[in-house]
């Protein structure tokens, strides 16, 4: 399931509800992305996430479909926020459920790596002095995505 929203989410509530009732699930993995208070050695006071409504949901749904093709997932959840966020606030939640831990853990890492380079989100960081700067894409993120190309679960 994909959710793109401005509002915060409650990790406890989401994970308690996630994959509940499916007794075949032996493991749930999750990743939570947070806003840091520093970027490249400089303090950050806020961050605004812009996105492309419509394409965002489409790309996230395709990423979920790709994860489900690669691993035997019982369930999959991606919540990604947009709007102005403060350091410490949650940006993204990725959760995966499978019969065994390996598929859940790997699929979770795949989803966060893949969405970072595919989903149309852009971060605008604000410094305490009021300067705003668009975050540049990292080559290390491209490499993290590249790592999954052709990779398949056994």
């Amino acid at each position, binding site marked *: 399931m994909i959710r793109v929203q401005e509002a915060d989410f409650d990790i406890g509530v989401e994970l308690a509800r996630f994959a509940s009732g499916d007794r075949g699930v032996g493991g749930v993995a999750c990743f939570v*992305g947070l806003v840091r208070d520093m970027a490249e050695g400089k303090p950050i006071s806020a961050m605004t*996430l*812009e*996105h*492309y409504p*419509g*394409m965002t949901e*489409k790309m996230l749904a395709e990423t979920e479909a790709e994860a489900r093709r690669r691993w035997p997932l019982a369930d999959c959840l991606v919540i*990604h926020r947009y709007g102005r966020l403060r350091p410490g606030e949650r*940006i*993204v939640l990725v959760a995966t459920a499978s019969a065994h831990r390996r598929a859940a853990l790997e699929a979770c890492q795949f989803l*966060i790596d893949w*969405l*970072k*380079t*595919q*989903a*149309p*989100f*852009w*971060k*605008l960081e604000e410094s305490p002095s009021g300067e705003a700067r*668009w*975050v*540049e*894409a*990292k080559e290390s*993120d491209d490499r993290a995505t590249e790592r999954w190309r052709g990779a398949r679960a056994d």
Partner: protein
Amino acid sequence: MKVLYFAWLKQKIGLAEEEVTLPAGVSDVAGLLDWLAARSPRHQEALARRSVVRVAVNQRYARPDCPVRPQDEVALFPPVTGG
């Protein structure tokens, strides 16, 4: 054609979106970017570094040789930084 701009492309051009009428001869993404760049000095500056401009046609990533038609929704944006 509807053209959308995001992040610093939106700021530099000063528009979130615009409706444009494609001239004859503009048939793919590369041609569209050349034509858009000539619309104003702001467009030209925003589109100067093509290597950092990503394009989506009808909400799908598109390469320079991807065809474009008048009814398409085309979006221009920098490399994405979500997650």
